[in-house]
């Protein structure tokens, strides 16, 4: 048997915290053959990024390899110093980082940054470097590479920046590329194009790829083999197709069930809520011809939302889907009364919110509540869980202290937060727990409408599935109306009854979810549906 390109053997990495070393990966072993794509899949905290960092010798300062070996072409590089690593980084192993916006130097041109890797590895001829840079930028599919080379990172979109980083990674034709969540920060359609590009480059040059991702759908589409990690331990390793068809470990089975993109095909779509029996007059949300302009430089108008109309019947869920810049956030801010639309009508439970000001607007907020995308920034770090949830009741002077406490405790119980957590501050909670607190805060006033602005996007798939389940139960119990904003069509399919698809501020499609999925009318919706990861493997499984 030939030696694999990369073989990781019993790797254990520990981080130093308060004078002690705490182990985060335990005896992780896997190998990557030349030209193969291996995906490391797991939730946050599973040790997948730590493993990838160890392979390229970029562990944080407080991390160290406790034991185990990392063999690159048979040579153990686990205990190499930084200097020795410099010689192989870029040439033999390279990295595509996670966040394209913070991974490029804002004060240097794209050309200079791509040229730097050539210069570091010994190229001295300026003209040759410039020519090679243009060639690389063209290779990764950037239009007008001469222009791009002269531009600065802020002049490029997120997807273009990720292409630049890929150009840097492939510059010296390395044998192994480590792609650490290369597309998590990007919109779905851009994500697909970037993954296609990595695939294509791999086929052309025979480079192996170690793909780190939390999205089993992405792994299913792109990887030859999948390594599933949980809590720093390997749960399962196997060929992608085999693992997806018949997962052996309980955790892999759960991941597979929780991934919305993979389960959508197998699980029956959301059972329709008796929307049909509710008369149209019972619309909880009515938006008509909504237009929202922003003034730029005091004069120029930018139309963020252009003539959007939809109606949501009480007790149902309406989803607003679109990529960043599509106007979905502006729309929901107008709906909850934080923004003032330029024209159009918004009516919530029969109240026209444009007419509301001052205290009337404050009283109106009891009817509609917003849950934010990021549960880390939407909770006051100085409040306890209990006081966060109690605050809306105090604002409206409802109930006395004892009755308030009963209500808050009952609700916290309902959203699944154990009693022990009630006096904690948000810092001491996990992302999923924080989002449960935010949901409890939104529900404590018994609103009629809850707006969920990307409320599950920041969560791991397993937690995401739990929160979606909770939202569904709460809707049925309380007859809530949801306005669900998301870029993720797979999730939308799971929770929504109706959907509006936005593109550049315009509504390109609206209708019942099942119909939109089965028979999309606009090419953009078609593209969005095709971009959902995890579909290729489905055809095969």
């Amino acid at each position, binding site marked *: 048997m030939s030696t694999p390109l990369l073989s990781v053997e*019993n790797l*254990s990495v*520990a981080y130093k915290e308060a*004078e*002690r*070393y*705490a*182990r985060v990966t*335990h*005896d*992780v*072993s*896997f190998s990557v053959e030349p030209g193969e794509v291996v995906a490391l899949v797991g939730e946050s905290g599973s040790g997948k990024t730590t493993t990838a960092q160890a392979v390229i010798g970029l562990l944080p300062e407080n991390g160290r390899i*406790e034991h185990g070996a990392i063999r690159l072409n048979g040579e153990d590089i686990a205990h190499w110093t930084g200097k020795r690593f410099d010689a192989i980084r870029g040439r033999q192993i390279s990295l595509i980082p996670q966040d394209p916006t913070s991974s490029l130097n804002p004060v240097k041109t794209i050309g200079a940054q791509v040229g730097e890797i050539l210069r570091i590895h010994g190229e001295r001829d300026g003209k040759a470097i410039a020519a090679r840079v243009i060639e690389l930028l063209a290779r990764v599919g950037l239009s007008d590479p001469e222009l791009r080379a002269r531009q600065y990172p802020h002049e490029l979109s997120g997807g273009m920046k990720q292409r630049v980083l890929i150009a840097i990674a492939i510059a010296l034709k390395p044998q192994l590329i480590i792609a650490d969540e290369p597309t998590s920060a990007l919109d779905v359609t851009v994500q697909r194009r970037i993954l296609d590009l990595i695939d294509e480059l791999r086929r052309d040059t025979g480079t192996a790829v170690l793909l780190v991702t939390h999205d089993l759908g992405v792994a299913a589409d792109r990887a030859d083999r999948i390594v599933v990690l949980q809590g*720093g*331990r*390997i*749960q*399962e*390793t*196997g060929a992608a197709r085999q693992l997806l068809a018949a997962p*052996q*470990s309980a955790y892999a089975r759960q991941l597979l069930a929780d991934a919305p993109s993979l389960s959508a095909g197998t699980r029956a779509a959301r059972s329709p809520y008796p929307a049909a029996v509710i008369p149209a007059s019972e619309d909880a949300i009515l938006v008509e011809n909504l237009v929202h302009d922003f003034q730029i430089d005091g004069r120029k108008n930018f139309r963020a939302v252009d003539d959007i109309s939809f109606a949501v019947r009480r007790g149902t869920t309406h989803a607003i889907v679109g990529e960043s810049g599509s106007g979905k956030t502006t729309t929901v801010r107008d709906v*909850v009364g*934080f923004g003032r639309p330029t024209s159009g009508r918004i009516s919530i439970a029969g109240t026209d919110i444009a007419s509301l000001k001052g205290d009337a607007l*404050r*009283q109106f*907020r*009891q009817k509609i*509540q*917003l849950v*934010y995308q*990021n549960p880390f*920034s*939407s*909770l*006051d*770090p*100085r*409040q306890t869980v209990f006081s966060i949830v109690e*605050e*809306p009741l105090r*604002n*409206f002077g409802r109930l006395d202290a004892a009755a308030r406490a009963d209500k808050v405790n009952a609700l916290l119980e309902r959203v699944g937060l154990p009693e022990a957590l009630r006096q904690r501050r948000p810092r001491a909670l996990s992302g999923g727990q924080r989002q449960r607190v*935010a949901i409890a*805060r*939104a529900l404590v*006033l018994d609103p009629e409408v809850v707006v969920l602005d990307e409320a599950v996007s920041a969560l791991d798939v397993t937690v995401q599935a739990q929160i979606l389940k909770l939202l569904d139960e709460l809707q049925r119990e309380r007859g809530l109306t949801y306005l669900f904003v998301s870029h993720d069509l797979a999730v939308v399919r799971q929770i929504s009854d109706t959907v509006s698809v936005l593109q550049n501020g315009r509504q390109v499609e609206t209708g019942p979810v099942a119909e939109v999925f089965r028979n999309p009318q606009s090419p953009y919706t078609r593209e969005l549906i095709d971009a959902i990861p995890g579909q290729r493997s489905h055809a095969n499984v």
Partner: protein
Amino acid sequence: MTSIGSTDILVSKPRNAAGNPLLQRLRGVSPSLVLAWGIIALVVLFAVAPSLFTSFNPVQGVPAEKLKAPSLIHILGTDALGRDLFARIVYGAVHSLTGAFVAVLVGLVVGTTLGLFAGAVGGLVEEAVMRVVDVLLSIPGLLLMLSIIILLGFGTVNAAIAVGITSVAGFARLSRSEVVRVRRSEYVEAAFGSGGTFLSVLWRHVLPNSLTSVLALAALQFGGAILAISTLGFLGYGAPPPTPEWGLLIAEGRNYISTAWWLTTAPGLVVVLVVLSANRISQALGKVGR
């Protein structure tokens, strides 16, 4: 192929296994910070219970004992009227500390309130308040203090108020910048969204989350205020003689600097130590905030 990790060692051994957690915690504290807190605590004790530290009267002189060099009886010597210098420093602490405390309180309360409202209301109010603050900042501190004292009249409290007013501008600027940062955060918007009124959100969310660096500045200003009050005392704008205020002690000792060096040196060193300690504590507070 399926491989599953098997070892169950969660935590590896720390390198030097010091058993006592208290000792470990103490090791993390910097000695200079402990010293700084010690000095401030001692000076506060001077102010609270001066008779514990000295049996001499700080105001009544003994003519026969005048201008004695430091000795076992008078550990810091005596002044021209035969008063024990150590006793005067101990009894003077209460004047310097209350002065500094009042000054910081005035600056903190007035400045933070101005900054809080400027940052939270925004628009014209913010512009107006911040331009007034700019004007305050453009006047040299000492000149501003002297002008205010001339308007209010001499005395310890008036000197303290004058020092406080000069620090209003700094507090207002810092608290406004913090408030602007916090106001934009999602939890503040969420608080409005759940029906909070302007004042309740300001009080429950914006103020507590903006205060950390403001408190660090307050500790820094405490040192500065002691220095400023001593300056005013030295120039004769503070407490009148025979009050043993530290600045006044230095001023009185100045006349005898060639024959009795201890009269200026000792109170001067005390002022320096207290100011440095306040700065060190402020630095630590700022770090905690970050």
